[in-house]
Protein backbone atom coordinates (compact mmCIF):
# COMPACT_ATOMS: atom_id res chain seq x y z
CA UNK A 1 0.00 0.00 0.00
CA UNK A 2 2.84 2.34 0.76
CA UNK A 3 4.83 1.39 -2.32
CA UNK A 4 5.06 4.27 -4.72
CA UNK A 5 6.00 4.86 -8.30
CA UNK A 6 9.54 5.98 -8.94
CA UNK A 7 9.89 9.58 -7.83
CA UNK A 8 11.36 10.64 -11.20
CA UNK A 9 8.04 9.93 -12.86
CA UNK A 10 6.10 11.88 -10.30
CA UNK A 11 8.41 14.88 -10.42
CA UNK A 12 8.14 15.09 -14.16
CA UNK A 13 4.41 15.48 -13.74
CA UNK A 14 5.14 18.69 -11.92
CA UNK A 15 6.69 20.46 -14.88
CA UNK A 16 6.09 23.97 -13.61
CA UNK A 17 8.78 23.37 -11.05
CA UNK A 18 11.62 23.21 -13.59
CA UNK A 19 10.31 26.20 -15.47
CA UNK A 20 10.06 28.05 -12.20
CA UNK A 21 13.54 27.08 -11.07
CA UNK A 22 15.09 28.07 -14.35
CA UNK A 23 13.40 31.42 -14.18
CA UNK A 24 14.65 31.88 -10.67
CA UNK A 25 18.19 30.99 -11.68
CA UNK A 26 17.97 33.38 -14.56
CA UNK A 27 16.71 36.18 -12.38
CA UNK A 28 19.37 35.51 -9.79
CA UNK A 29 22.02 35.60 -12.50
CA UNK A 30 20.61 38.74 -14.02
CA UNK A 31 20.74 40.49 -10.69
CA UNK A 32 24.41 39.56 -10.47
CA UNK A 33 23.95 37.59 -7.28
CA UNK A 34 26.73 35.16 -6.59
CA UNK A 35 25.10 32.02 -5.36
CA UNK A 36 27.19 30.09 -2.91
CA UNK A 37 29.14 27.31 -4.60
CA UNK A 38 27.31 24.01 -4.66
CA UNK A 39 24.39 25.51 -2.77
CA UNK A 40 22.75 27.20 -5.70
CA UNK A 41 18.98 27.11 -5.83
CA UNK A 42 18.03 23.67 -7.00
CA UNK A 43 21.25 21.86 -6.03
CA UNK A 44 20.37 18.18 -6.15
CA UNK A 45 20.43 15.77 -3.27
CA UNK A 46 21.30 12.34 -4.63
CA UNK A 47 20.84 8.69 -3.66
CA UNK A 48 17.68 9.15 -1.71
CA UNK A 49 16.14 6.17 0.00
CA UNK A 50 12.41 5.73 -0.07
CA UNK A 51 10.45 5.53 3.12
CA UNK A 52 7.45 3.50 4.08
CA UNK A 53 6.23 6.52 6.03
CA UNK A 54 5.57 8.32 2.73
CA UNK A 55 2.01 8.98 1.69
CA UNK A 56 0.91 8.39 -1.88
CA UNK A 57 -1.46 11.37 -1.90
CA UNK A 58 -0.86 13.88 -4.72
CA UNK A 59 1.92 16.29 -3.85
CA UNK A 60 1.39 20.03 -3.53
CA UNK A 61 3.04 21.78 -6.52
CA UNK A 62 6.60 23.01 -5.94
CA UNK A 63 5.56 26.57 -6.64
CA UNK A 64 2.96 26.54 -3.85
CA UNK A 65 5.31 24.85 -1.39
CA UNK A 66 7.91 27.54 -2.03
CA UNK A 67 5.78 30.68 -2.31
CA UNK A 68 3.28 30.20 0.51
CA UNK A 69 5.25 30.15 3.73
CA UNK A 70 5.10 31.23 7.33
CA UNK A 71 8.62 32.38 8.17
CA UNK A 72 8.13 35.58 10.16
CA UNK A 73 11.84 36.44 10.18
CA UNK A 74 11.31 37.33 6.51
CA UNK A 75 7.90 39.00 6.84
CA UNK A 76 4.46 38.04 8.07
CA UNK A 77 2.74 37.75 4.66
CA UNK A 78 2.61 34.30 3.11
CA UNK A 79 4.42 35.46 -0.03
CA UNK A 80 7.03 37.52 1.89
CA UNK A 81 9.59 34.79 2.68
CA UNK A 82 10.01 33.77 -0.98
CA UNK A 83 10.62 37.43 -1.86
CA UNK A 84 12.75 38.47 1.10
CA UNK A 85 14.89 35.41 1.76
CA UNK A 86 16.64 35.31 -1.63
CA UNK A 87 19.88 36.75 -0.21
CA UNK A 88 19.81 34.80 3.04
CA UNK A 89 23.39 33.56 3.64
CA UNK A 90 23.31 29.97 4.85
CA UNK A 91 26.97 29.18 4.28
CA UNK A 92 28.96 28.82 6.53
CA UNK A 93 26.44 27.34 8.95
CA UNK A 94 26.76 25.89 12.41
CA UNK A 95 24.35 23.71 14.31
CA UNK A 96 25.21 23.28 17.96
CA UNK A 97 24.06 20.20 19.87
CA UNK A 98 24.42 20.75 23.62
CA UNK A 99 22.84 20.30 27.05
CA UNK A 100 22.36 17.07 28.95
CA UNK A 101 24.40 14.79 26.70
CA UNK A 102 27.77 13.08 26.78
CA UNK A 103 28.77 14.15 23.33
CA UNK A 104 27.99 17.82 22.64
CA UNK A 105 29.17 18.91 19.24
CA UNK A 106 28.95 21.63 16.60
CA UNK A 107 28.25 20.56 13.03
CA UNK A 108 28.50 22.33 9.71
CA UNK A 109 25.84 21.59 7.09
CA UNK A 110 28.00 19.15 5.20
CA UNK A 111 29.01 16.95 8.12
CA UNK A 112 25.46 17.06 9.41
CA UNK A 113 24.05 15.93 6.09
CA UNK A 114 26.48 13.01 5.93
CA UNK A 115 25.59 11.74 9.36
CA UNK A 116 22.94 9.29 8.11
CA UNK A 117 21.53 8.16 4.77
CA UNK A 118 19.11 10.66 3.27
CA UNK A 119 15.53 9.56 2.73
CA UNK A 120 12.65 11.05 0.87
CA UNK A 121 9.59 11.35 3.09
CA UNK A 122 6.34 12.49 1.56
CA UNK A 123 4.42 13.91 4.50
CA UNK A 124 1.18 15.75 5.02
CA UNK A 125 1.72 19.15 6.59
CA UNK A 126 -1.15 20.75 8.50
CA UNK A 127 -0.93 24.42 9.45
CA UNK A 128 -2.78 25.69 12.53
CA UNK A 129 -4.41 28.27 10.22
CA UNK A 130 -6.52 25.56 8.61
CA UNK A 131 -4.66 24.69 5.41
CA UNK A 132 -2.49 21.72 4.50
CA UNK A 133 0.00 20.49 1.92
CA UNK A 134 1.72 17.26 0.88
CA UNK A 135 5.47 17.77 0.64
CA UNK A 136 8.31 15.43 -0.40
CA UNK A 137 10.89 16.29 2.26
CA UNK A 138 14.45 14.97 2.32
CA UNK A 139 16.29 14.14 5.49
CA UNK A 140 16.85 11.49 8.12
CA UNK A 141 15.33 10.79 11.51
CA UNK A 142 16.38 13.31 14.13
CA UNK A 143 17.02 10.29 16.32
CA UNK A 144 20.21 9.59 14.33
CA UNK A 145 21.68 12.92 15.43
CA UNK A 146 20.42 12.67 19.01
CA UNK A 147 21.94 9.19 19.39
CA UNK A 148 25.32 10.64 18.41
CA UNK A 149 24.92 13.18 21.18
CA UNK A 150 24.18 10.46 23.74
CA UNK A 151 21.54 12.09 25.93
CA UNK A 152 22.07 11.52 29.65
CA UNK A 153 19.37 10.34 32.05
CA UNK A 154 18.57 13.94 32.87
CA UNK A 155 17.50 14.72 29.30
CA UNK A 156 13.70 14.66 29.10
CA UNK A 157 13.08 17.30 26.48
CA UNK A 158 14.73 18.76 23.41
CA UNK A 159 14.80 22.50 22.84
CA UNK A 160 15.32 23.92 19.34
CA UNK A 161 16.36 27.37 18.23
CA UNK A 162 16.30 29.08 14.83
CA UNK A 163 18.87 31.40 13.37
CA UNK A 164 18.10 35.05 13.93
CA UNK A 165 20.21 37.96 12.86
CA UNK A 166 18.52 41.29 12.30
CA UNK A 167 20.79 42.38 9.44
CA UNK A 168 19.93 39.25 7.47
CA UNK A 169 16.34 39.36 8.66
CA UNK A 170 15.37 43.03 9.04
CA UNK A 171 11.68 42.22 8.96
CA UNK A 172 11.99 40.10 12.06
CA UNK A 173 11.58 43.32 14.01
CA UNK A 174 7.94 43.54 12.96
CA UNK A 175 7.10 39.87 13.41
CA UNK A 176 5.34 40.57 16.70
CA UNK A 177 6.86 37.41 18.21
CA UNK A 178 9.96 36.88 20.28
CA UNK A 179 12.96 35.96 18.12
CA UNK A 180 15.02 33.82 17.78
CA UNK A 181 12.20 31.37 17.18
CA UNK A 182 12.15 28.52 19.68
CA UNK A 183 10.45 25.17 19.72
CA UNK A 184 10.53 22.03 21.80
CA UNK A 185 9.62 18.35 21.93
CA UNK A 186 9.56 15.71 24.57
CA UNK A 187 12.62 13.45 24.16
CA UNK A 188 10.46 10.49 23.11
CA UNK A 189 8.74 12.64 20.48
CA UNK A 190 12.09 13.84 19.22
CA UNK A 191 13.37 10.26 19.02
CA UNK A 192 10.30 9.06 17.15
CA UNK A 193 11.17 7.71 13.67
CA UNK A 194 8.67 10.10 12.04
CA UNK A 195 10.51 13.16 13.36
CA UNK A 196 12.72 14.30 10.51
CA UNK A 197 15.86 16.40 10.42
CA UNK A 198 15.28 17.90 7.01
CA UNK A 199 17.71 19.20 4.37
CA UNK A 200 15.64 19.40 1.23
CA UNK A 201 12.41 19.03 -0.65
CA UNK A 202 11.45 17.92 -4.14
CA UNK A 203 14.88 16.38 -4.65
CA UNK A 204 16.75 19.64 -4.00
CA UNK A 205 18.32 21.36 -1.02
CA UNK A 206 15.87 23.44 0.99
CA UNK A 207 15.01 26.80 -0.58
CA UNK A 208 15.76 29.63 1.86
CA UNK A 209 12.11 30.39 2.46
CA UNK A 210 11.48 26.80 3.53
CA UNK A 211 14.08 26.91 6.29
CA UNK A 212 17.49 26.39 4.67
CA UNK A 213 19.86 24.78 5.31
CA UNK A 214 18.38 22.48 7.94
CA UNK A 215 15.01 22.31 9.67
CA UNK A 216 12.76 20.01 11.61
CA UNK A 217 9.63 18.28 10.28
CA UNK A 218 7.16 16.84 12.80
CA UNK A 219 4.24 15.72 10.65
CA UNK A 220 1.67 14.94 13.36
CA UNK A 221 1.93 18.42 14.88
CA UNK A 222 0.83 21.80 13.55
CA UNK A 223 3.33 23.28 11.12
CA UNK A 224 4.76 25.86 13.52
CA UNK A 225 6.38 23.04 15.52
CA UNK A 226 8.54 22.22 12.48
CA UNK A 227 11.15 24.88 13.22
CA UNK A 228 13.21 26.29 10.35
CA UNK A 229 16.89 27.20 9.89
CA UNK A 230 18.10 25.40 12.99
CA UNK A 231 21.20 26.58 14.85
CA UNK A 232 20.77 25.00 18.26
CA UNK A 233 19.51 21.74 19.70
CA UNK A 234 19.65 21.50 23.48
CA UNK A 235 18.87 18.43 25.55
CA UNK A 236 16.92 19.72 28.52
CA UNK A 237 15.61 18.43 31.83
CA UNK A 238 12.63 20.82 31.89
CA UNK A 239 9.95 21.55 29.33
CA UNK A 240 11.38 24.35 27.18
CA UNK A 241 9.33 27.45 26.45
CA UNK A 242 8.28 27.82 22.84
CA UNK A 243 7.77 30.97 20.79
CA UNK A 244 4.05 30.80 20.08
CA UNK A 245 3.08 29.67 23.54
CA UNK A 246 5.06 32.62 24.95
CA UNK A 247 3.26 34.95 22.56
CA UNK A 248 -0.21 33.55 23.29
CA UNK A 249 -0.41 30.74 25.85
CA UNK A 250 -4.19 30.42 25.61
CA UNK A 251 -4.01 29.61 21.91
CA UNK A 252 -0.79 27.66 21.51
CA UNK A 253 0.32 24.88 23.82
CA UNK A 254 3.55 22.92 24.07
CA UNK A 255 2.22 19.79 22.39
CA UNK A 256 0.26 21.29 19.49
CA UNK A 257 -0.66 17.89 18.11
CA UNK A 258 -3.01 18.07 15.16
CA UNK A 259 -6.37 17.41 16.82
CA UNK A 260 -9.73 18.06 15.16
CA UNK A 261 -11.47 17.86 18.55
CA UNK A 262 -9.52 20.63 20.21
CA UNK A 263 -10.72 23.92 18.84
CA UNK A 264 -8.44 26.88 18.37
CA UNK A 265 -10.05 30.22 19.38
CA UNK A 266 -9.42 31.59 15.90
CA UNK A 267 -9.77 28.69 13.54
CA UNK A 268 -11.89 25.57 13.70
CA UNK A 269 -9.55 22.62 13.56
CA UNK A 270 -12.24 20.16 12.48
CA UNK A 271 -11.49 20.63 8.80
CA UNK A 272 -8.79 21.98 6.54
CA UNK A 273 -8.30 23.17 3.00
CA UNK A 274 -5.65 21.24 1.11
CA UNK A 275 -3.79 23.79 -0.98
CA UNK A 276 -5.01 23.44 -4.56
CA UNK A 277 -8.39 22.00 -3.58
CA UNK A 278 -11.73 23.81 -3.48
CA UNK A 279 -13.64 21.80 -0.91
CA UNK A 280 -12.45 21.36 2.62
CA UNK A 281 -11.62 17.95 4.02
CA UNK A 282 -11.93 16.56 7.52
CA UNK A 283 -8.81 16.94 9.61
CA UNK A 284 -7.45 13.63 10.89
CA UNK A 285 -6.35 12.99 14.46
CA UNK A 286 -2.56 13.39 14.64
CA UNK A 287 -2.77 14.47 11.01
CA UNK A 288 -3.36 10.83 10.07
CA UNK A 289 -0.23 9.56 11.85
CA UNK A 290 -2.14 8.20 14.83
CA UNK A 291 -1.17 4.57 14.30
CA UNK A 292 2.47 5.60 14.76
CA UNK A 293 2.28 8.27 17.43
CA UNK A 294 -0.88 7.76 19.49
CA UNK A 295 0.95 5.49 21.99
CA UNK A 296 3.23 8.42 22.88
CA UNK A 297 0.24 10.07 24.53
CA UNK A 298 -1.34 7.18 26.40
CA UNK A 299 -2.88 8.53 29.59
CA UNK A 300 -2.35 12.16 28.63
CA UNK A 301 -5.40 14.46 28.50
CA UNK A 302 -5.01 15.97 25.05
CA UNK A 303 -7.67 18.61 25.71
CA UNK A 304 -5.63 20.00 28.58
CA UNK A 305 -2.28 19.36 26.93
CA UNK A 306 -3.05 21.05 23.62
Amino acid at each position, binding site marked *: MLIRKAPEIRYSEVTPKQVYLNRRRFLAGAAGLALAKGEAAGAKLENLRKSEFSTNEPMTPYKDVTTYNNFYEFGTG*KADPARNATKFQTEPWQLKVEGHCNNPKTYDTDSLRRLAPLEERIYRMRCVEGWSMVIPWIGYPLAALLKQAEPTDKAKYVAFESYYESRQMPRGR*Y*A*GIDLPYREGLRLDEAMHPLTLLCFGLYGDVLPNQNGAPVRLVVPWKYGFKSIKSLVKIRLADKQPSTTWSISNPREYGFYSNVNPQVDH*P*RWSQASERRIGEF*FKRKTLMFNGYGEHVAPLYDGLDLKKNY
Partner: protein
Amino acid sequence: MASLLRSRWLKPVVFLLCLLPLGLLILRGFQGELGANPIEYITHATGDWTMRFLLITLSITPVRRIAKQPDLIRFRRMLGLFSFFYGCLHLMTWMWLDKFFDPGEMWADVVKRRFITAGMVGFVAMIPLAFTSTRGWIRRLGGRNWQRLHRLIYVSAAAGVVHYYWLVKSDIRLPALYAGILAILLLLRAPFARRQAAVRAGTASG
Protein backbone atom coordinates in the same frame (compact mmCIF):
# COMPACT_ATOMS: atom_id res chain seq x y z
CA MET B 1 -11.25 72.30 -8.44
CA ALA B 2 -14.74 73.23 -7.34
CA SER B 3 -16.05 73.09 -10.89
CA LEU B 4 -14.36 69.75 -11.42
CA LEU B 5 -16.06 68.39 -8.31
CA ARG B 6 -19.36 69.56 -9.68
CA SER B 7 -18.79 68.05 -13.12
CA ARG B 8 -21.35 65.61 -14.38
CA TRP B 9 -18.63 63.25 -15.47
CA LEU B 10 -16.84 62.88 -12.23
CA LYS B 11 -19.42 60.66 -10.59
CA PRO B 12 -19.26 57.86 -13.15
CA VAL B 13 -15.48 58.10 -13.11
CA VAL B 14 -15.36 57.71 -9.33
CA PHE B 15 -17.85 54.88 -9.63
CA LEU B 16 -15.57 53.04 -12.02
CA LEU B 17 -12.55 53.71 -9.83
CA CYS B 18 -14.38 52.15 -6.90
CA LEU B 19 -14.92 49.02 -9.00
CA LEU B 20 -11.23 48.82 -9.84
CA PRO B 21 -10.23 46.67 -6.81
CA LEU B 22 -12.89 44.12 -7.78
CA GLY B 23 -11.83 44.26 -11.42
CA LEU B 24 -8.20 43.65 -10.51
CA LEU B 25 -9.20 40.78 -8.25
CA ILE B 26 -11.17 39.13 -11.05
CA LEU B 27 -8.35 39.74 -13.52
CA ARG B 28 -5.78 38.19 -11.22
CA GLY B 29 -8.15 35.30 -10.67
CA PHE B 30 -8.32 34.59 -14.38
CA GLN B 31 -4.55 34.86 -14.64
CA GLY B 32 -4.15 32.39 -11.79
CA GLU B 33 -2.30 35.04 -9.81
CA LEU B 34 -4.13 34.71 -6.50
CA GLY B 35 -1.36 32.63 -4.95
CA ALA B 36 -1.44 29.19 -3.39
CA ASN B 37 -4.59 29.92 -1.38
CA PRO B 38 -6.93 31.94 -3.62
CA ILE B 39 -9.85 31.84 -1.19
CA GLU B 40 -7.76 33.38 1.56
CA TYR B 41 -6.56 36.00 -0.92
CA ILE B 42 -10.13 36.93 -1.87
CA THR B 43 -11.19 37.08 1.79
CA HIS B 44 -8.32 39.39 2.58
CA ALA B 45 -8.72 41.62 -0.47
CA THR B 46 -12.45 42.15 0.08
CA GLY B 47 -11.92 42.71 3.83
CA ASP B 48 -9.20 45.26 3.13
CA TRP B 49 -11.43 47.20 0.74
CA THR B 50 -14.41 47.15 3.09
CA MET B 51 -12.21 48.75 5.72
CA ARG B 52 -10.64 51.24 3.32
CA PHE B 53 -13.97 52.38 1.90
CA LEU B 54 -15.33 52.83 5.42
CA LEU B 55 -12.40 55.10 6.24
CA ILE B 56 -12.63 56.96 2.93
CA THR B 57 -16.34 57.56 3.53
CA LEU B 58 -15.62 58.84 7.02
CA SER B 59 -12.97 61.20 5.68
CA ILE B 60 -15.38 63.05 3.36
CA THR B 61 -16.87 65.30 6.03
CA PRO B 62 -13.61 66.49 7.62
CA VAL B 63 -11.85 66.85 4.27
CA ARG B 64 -14.78 68.81 2.90
CA ARG B 65 -14.52 71.23 5.75
CA ILE B 66 -10.76 71.52 5.93
CA ALA B 67 -10.26 71.81 2.16
CA LYS B 68 -13.38 73.96 1.86
CA GLN B 69 -14.79 71.71 -0.84
CA PRO B 70 -18.45 71.27 0.09
CA ASP B 71 -19.17 69.52 -3.20
CA LEU B 72 -17.33 66.43 -2.00
CA ILE B 73 -20.59 65.51 -0.31
CA ARG B 74 -21.82 64.30 -3.69
CA PHE B 75 -19.61 61.25 -3.33
CA ARG B 76 -20.25 60.25 0.24
CA ARG B 77 -23.26 58.05 -0.33
CA MET B 78 -21.60 56.23 -3.21
CA LEU B 79 -18.46 55.57 -1.22
CA GLY B 80 -20.44 54.32 1.74
CA LEU B 81 -22.41 52.00 -0.52
CA PHE B 82 -19.19 50.66 -1.99
CA SER B 83 -18.00 49.86 1.49
CA PHE B 84 -21.22 47.90 1.95
CA PHE B 85 -20.72 46.28 -1.46
CA TYR B 86 -17.22 45.03 -0.60
CA GLY B 87 -18.52 44.02 2.83
CA CYS B 88 -21.16 41.85 1.13
CA LEU B 89 -18.51 40.23 -1.08
CA HIS B 90 -16.33 39.66 2.00
CA LEU B 91 -19.19 38.10 3.94
CA MET B 92 -20.25 35.99 0.95
CA THR B 93 -16.70 34.69 0.52
CA TRP B 94 -16.78 33.52 4.09
CA MET B 95 -20.32 32.10 3.95
CA TRP B 96 -19.79 30.27 0.72
CA LEU B 97 -16.13 29.39 0.28
CA ASP B 98 -15.24 28.96 3.94
CA LYS B 99 -18.45 27.63 5.48
CA PHE B 100 -20.31 26.30 2.42
CA PHE B 101 -23.51 27.82 3.83
CA ASP B 102 -23.60 25.44 6.78
CA PRO B 103 -25.84 27.35 9.24
CA GLY B 104 -24.59 25.44 12.28
CA GLU B 105 -20.97 26.10 11.51
CA MET B 106 -21.58 29.74 10.71
CA TRP B 107 -23.50 30.31 13.93
CA ALA B 108 -20.83 28.50 15.94
CA ASP B 109 -18.19 30.79 14.43
CA VAL B 110 -20.17 33.96 15.07
CA VAL B 111 -20.69 33.19 18.75
CA LYS B 112 -17.37 31.50 19.45
CA ARG B 113 -14.74 33.43 17.53
CA ARG B 114 -14.51 36.95 18.75
CA PHE B 115 -12.98 38.26 15.53
CA ILE B 116 -15.97 36.92 13.60
CA THR B 117 -18.36 38.40 16.19
CA ALA B 118 -16.74 41.81 15.76
CA GLY B 119 -16.85 41.52 11.96
CA MET B 120 -20.51 40.61 12.11
CA VAL B 121 -21.28 43.63 14.32
CA GLY B 122 -19.48 45.79 11.77
CA PHE B 123 -21.40 44.34 8.88
CA VAL B 124 -24.83 44.36 10.52
CA ALA B 125 -24.35 48.01 11.48
CA MET B 126 -23.91 48.83 7.79
CA ILE B 127 -27.20 47.26 6.72
CA PRO B 128 -29.61 50.01 7.91
CA LEU B 129 -27.25 52.62 6.49
CA ALA B 130 -27.28 51.06 3.05
CA PHE B 131 -31.04 50.61 3.26
CA THR B 132 -31.77 54.23 4.22
CA SER B 133 -29.20 55.82 1.94
CA THR B 134 -31.74 57.27 -0.50
CA ARG B 135 -33.16 60.79 -0.53
CA GLY B 136 -36.61 59.36 0.14
CA TRP B 137 -35.40 57.88 3.41
CA ILE B 138 -33.73 61.10 4.48
CA ARG B 139 -37.08 62.81 4.02
CA ARG B 140 -39.04 60.08 5.73
CA LEU B 141 -36.78 59.96 8.75
CA GLY B 142 -36.11 63.65 8.92
CA GLY B 143 -32.58 65.04 8.69
CA ARG B 144 -31.79 64.84 12.39
CA ASN B 145 -32.94 61.25 12.84
CA TRP B 146 -31.29 60.20 9.63
CA GLN B 147 -28.02 61.74 10.77
CA ARG B 148 -28.32 60.10 14.15
CA LEU B 149 -28.94 56.71 12.57
CA HIS B 150 -26.00 57.14 10.23
CA ARG B 151 -23.64 57.57 13.13
CA LEU B 152 -23.73 53.78 13.09
CA ILE B 153 -20.88 54.07 10.62
CA TYR B 154 -18.60 54.75 13.60
CA VAL B 155 -19.69 51.45 15.10
CA SER B 156 -18.98 49.74 11.81
CA ALA B 157 -15.53 51.23 11.39
CA ALA B 158 -14.55 50.60 15.02
CA ALA B 159 -15.83 47.02 14.84
CA GLY B 160 -13.89 46.55 11.59
CA VAL B 161 -10.67 47.68 13.25
CA VAL B 162 -11.26 45.44 16.27
CA HIS B 163 -12.10 42.54 13.92
CA TYR B 164 -8.80 43.04 12.12
CA TYR B 165 -6.83 43.46 15.35
CA TRP B 166 -8.27 40.23 16.73
CA LEU B 167 -7.63 38.19 13.60
CA VAL B 168 -3.95 38.90 13.08
CA LYS B 169 -1.65 36.43 14.79
CA SER B 170 1.13 38.72 15.91
CA ASP B 171 1.95 41.47 13.42
CA ILE B 172 -0.45 44.27 14.40
CA ARG B 173 0.96 47.02 12.19
CA LEU B 174 -1.92 47.21 9.71
CA PRO B 175 -4.80 47.10 12.20
CA ALA B 176 -2.90 49.69 14.25
CA LEU B 177 -2.58 51.89 11.16
CA TYR B 178 -6.32 51.68 10.47
CA ALA B 179 -7.06 52.38 14.14
CA GLY B 180 -4.81 55.45 13.94
CA ILE B 181 -6.51 56.75 10.81
CA LEU B 182 -9.93 56.22 12.38
CA ALA B 183 -8.85 58.06 15.53
CA ILE B 184 -7.59 61.03 13.49
CA LEU B 185 -10.82 61.15 11.49
CA LEU B 186 -12.84 61.20 14.69
CA LEU B 187 -10.66 63.86 16.30
CA LEU B 188 -11.01 66.09 13.25
CA ARG B 189 -14.76 66.03 13.78
CA ALA B 190 -14.71 66.95 17.44
CA PRO B 191 -14.46 70.77 17.14
CA PHE B 192 -17.17 70.83 14.51
CA ALA B 193 -19.50 68.59 16.49
CA ARG B 194 -19.10 70.90 19.50
CA ARG B 195 -19.90 73.96 17.42
CA GLN B 196 -22.94 72.26 15.94
CA ALA B 197 -24.20 71.29 19.37
CA ALA B 198 -23.81 74.91 20.48
CA VAL B 199 -25.71 76.13 17.44
CA ARG B 200 -28.45 73.64 18.06
CA ALA B 201 -28.76 74.63 21.69
CA GLY B 202 -28.91 78.29 20.63
CA THR B 203 -31.60 78.03 17.98
CA ALA B 204 -33.53 75.15 19.53
CA SER B 205 -34.72 74.14 16.11
CA GLY B 206 -35.04 70.62 14.64
